[in-house]
């Protein structure tokens, strides 16, 4: 994920401070050896979304591990996983076995206004989590602008800023995330490439050509942009994760803190519900 320039995410200022730090001092880094206390109580980790796009909805189950374990997170199989909207219950099955990825049937779609509850039974414990699916405004227009703020290395694909035109829904408390797909391939499936923001400073406003992401593409490529409505809880988790990982290393990092979770029974991670609107554009020649 990238910091949005909208001050609501506070990252504009943090970024500027970081830059100032760099200017003032030419800070340097080097790897060091440290001894960490032993980690003895692995916990269930949930990462899952249900959207209003008809598709197999995915929930991923893994376990936490020691910080220096150096291995991919252990996956969790043999769990019973369901998502319910209060009326219907959708079962999820692990595909393929051992991957830790659980999917609904292919045609499952949520609808805005419903409260979705995830239930996971694993290792004799039951974990639950709920999130309300909020509506999202459509993307009215899209544009791509060549990014000349950065220095390109030889052979690197050009980068384009993704600009959207939309209107924030009336009422405060709307939170957004955007994801871009170049020729139907997601940029990279990582929080690093997802931009998110809250509507604190543009409540109910017309948003005209605000940058919501960056794509590596060549002229003529199709770029599909998704605009998601996420809950405040999801926003806090995503921001918390970035503050404790990718954004660290500046002079003004917040104190280390465990990222919140919306899963019961001591599990980590987040289960969210989101309404998604898409629009596709073409990178201009």
């Amino acid at each position, binding site marked *: 994920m990238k910091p949005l320039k909208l001050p609501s995410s506070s990252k504009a200022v943090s970024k500027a401070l970081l830059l100032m730090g760099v200017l003032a001092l030419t*800070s*340097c880094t080097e790897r*060091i050896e440290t001894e960490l206390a032993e980690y003895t109580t692995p916990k269930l980790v949930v990462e899952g979304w249900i959207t209003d796009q008809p598709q197999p909805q995915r929930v991923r189950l*893994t376990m936490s591990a020691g910080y220096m374990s150096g291995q991919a997170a252990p996956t969790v199989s043999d769990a019973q996983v369901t998502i319910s909207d209060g009326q219907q219950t959708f079962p999820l099955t692990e595909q393929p076995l051992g991957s830790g990825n659980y999917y609904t049937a292919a045609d499952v779609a949520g609808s805005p206004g419903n409260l979705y509850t995830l239930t996971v039974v694993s290792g004799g414990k039951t974990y639950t989590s709920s999130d309300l699916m909020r509506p999202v405004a459509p993307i009215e227009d899209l544009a791509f602008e060549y990014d000349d703020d950065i*220095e390109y290395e030889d052979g690197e694909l050009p980068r384009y800023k993704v600009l959207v035109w939309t209107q924030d829904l009336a009422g405060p408390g709307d939170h957004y995330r955007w994801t871009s797909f170049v020729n139907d391939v997601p940029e990279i499936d990582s929080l690093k490439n997802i931009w998110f923001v809250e509507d604190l400073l543009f409540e109910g406003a017309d948003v005209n050509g605000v940058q919501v992401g960056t794509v590596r593409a060549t002229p003529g490529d199709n770029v599909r942009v998704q605009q998601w409505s996420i809950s405040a809880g999801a926003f806090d988790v995503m921001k918390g994760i970035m503050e404790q990982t990718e954004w660290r290393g500046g002079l003004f990092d917040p104190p280390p803190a465990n990222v919140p979770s919306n899963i019961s029974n001591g599990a980590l991670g987040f289960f969210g519900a989101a309404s998604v609107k898409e629009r596709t554009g073409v990178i201009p020649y």
Partner: protein
Amino acid sequence: MSRWTIPLILPLLCSGALAQGGFTLSGNIKDKATGEDLIGALVQVTGPTTTGVSANTYGFYSLTLPPGDYTVRYSFMGYTRIEQPLKLDRDIRQDIQLAEATNELKAVEVTSRGKDKNIADVQMSSNHMSIETMKTIPAFMGEVDVIKALQMLPGVQTMGEGGSGMYVRGGGVDQNLILLDEAPVYNAAHLLGFFSVFNGDAIKDVQLYKGGIPASYGGRLSSVVDIRMKDGNNQKFNVEGGLGTIASRLTVQAPIVKDKGSFIVSGRRTYADQFLGLSNDKGLKHSKLYFYDMNMKANYTLNENNRVFASGYFGRDVFKNQGIGLDWGNATGTVRWNHVFNAKLFANITGIYSTFNYGAGSDDRADAFEWTSSIRDVSGKADFNYYFNPNNTIKFGGQISVHTFAPGKVTGESDESAVTGLELPRTHSVEEAFYISNEQRFGSRFTATYGVRISAFENLGTRGVFEEDPEQPDANPRYVNWEPRLGAKYALTEMSSIKASYNRTAQYLHLASNGNSSTPFDIWFPTSERVKPEVADQYALGYFRNFSNNRYEFSVEGYYKEMRNAVDFKDNANLFLNESLEDEVRFGTAWAYGSEFMVRKQEGKLTGMLSYTLSHSDRRIDGINDGKKYRSKYDKTHNVSLMASYKLTKLWSVGASWVYQTGSPITMPIGRYEYGGQIVPIYSERNAERMPDYHRMDLSVTKASRKNETRRWQSEWVFSVYNAYARKNTYSINFRQDKDEPNKTFAEKTYLFSIVPSITYNFKF
């Protein structure tokens, strides 16, 4: 004010009444060459009574004595003393001018400002530093820095490299009352703390109180840094300045009317950003980064009994990069009227203005915005010194301040901008205080000071910093705190004494500072219905001993401090533009204790100081670290500072300093999990681990021009080296994910400086 029904009893005036019926010797003590008041100059009399007094911050002194023949001695550190007979048969006004000693004399003949002041004074836990002493310390980038000099003193901790935050006896950075000519300075840092806002050329004198805080100061828990600007030379026109690696300075002083009034104007501007053009980074190349500041002061003596002062400070930091602009700074103003009612009663009436504000903005068309925030103080203050008799000096006064907090306002800057704007509600608060204290001598060995400060705080009108219960009307409780201030000294011998003190302090303004370093974007917020005033109790005990005819001062002090309603922020707190900031605050108790050792030599060719502090501070805050006690982020067990300066010849002098500190506490991860392609850390207890120890040596060499003796133009070159043995001191440790092997994690340390040399050219004419 009618709510103040405090019986202002002066219980001990009666016992002092015995000494009535004498005459009063009073006056001002000034520097002969510049007309500057000599703060703390000593007046000693021998005769029918043997006693003494030191001049107050305006150079005024008063002594009431039985009639008779005396010898009066006026002295001040680094000045030639004056000793003269005096026949006291009426009230006498005697204004004195002391001349600065020549260098040769300084080494032998000269008495210090009461050589044994540290033994004789009842005040403990306090350090005085003259600007001359500060100039002998090797300075980062050659910029003489008041705050950095204070950081060398025992009991003062720092955070990380280069920061200008001070943590005094386990107190936070917001618990220091930093006064510039009596105006509080809310953010003492330039350029994110690598420099402080005080220009060494405009400063006369700095006094730090870590404990036994006099009743005349209040509003912060842990310390007072009382900085006085120069008054300006009232004898002759005088210019001094310097050209440095990073900044240049220029100061002009002149009489308005000789002997009666003078002014000083001093300015400073950095040009570090000129080097950015050399960077290959496209972003940095077109960046701007600089600060400037300006000090001004004028004073005029109307007559023997009335004198007026006006002083001001204005400083600004500016940063611009890729459409984002930031700027911040302080402005202060002070007007003062000294009035001598009679030889025994001295008064000072002060009007104070102080503001700190910042702005941030972006000029991108689609999301252009401007963000501003400020805090502003307007205060009135009256202080009285009543020299009742030689055994009782009574100080009393009061202060009323109106604080205005504008925590944040954002506006869209163009018609196209999507930013609709937001303004957090402003708050107006009133803080009042009254104090009275007496310093009383009981015989020649025992002196006590006892007093009380009564402070009160209340917010005005309606406010909405937190979400209110609609059922409940907005409540603005009024908080009142009684703050006893006690101190005692017992002289064991002429060269040694023991001292004890107790003080309670209350603080009504709190700083929302989340990160490890303080930034200009930290937010000051007031006490309210939910945020209670912070209150501290401190007990201190000390032993003071001088050696070799007062050439060496030694002291050891122990302290214990408890701070209630200490504030901290919950995990993942959101402090930016948060309308319900108070929801993020958590409360608890903090404790600090320690001992401080110091040896200091202030005269001779070799001067210097060695200090060692052994200390501990921790806190327990509801909802943080599962409600368990944890170390404060500035808890450093061992802290050693050594500074020394040696005058080799008339032209050459060298300086060195060395600091050693236990590594800062940090929180390290124990576990991890994956989410969204990131490896997310799971932390154990807060501040349970430590970074590697910090140590650093700085050196400087000063060479005065050979021609100085024969001309009016005086000049010198100062060469200094910061971090002389290039230690890569850890600034922070971060845990990261390897880019090539995403399952791998590693620890990475950030360090800021290796060796940093600098050159400065100073001149004076």
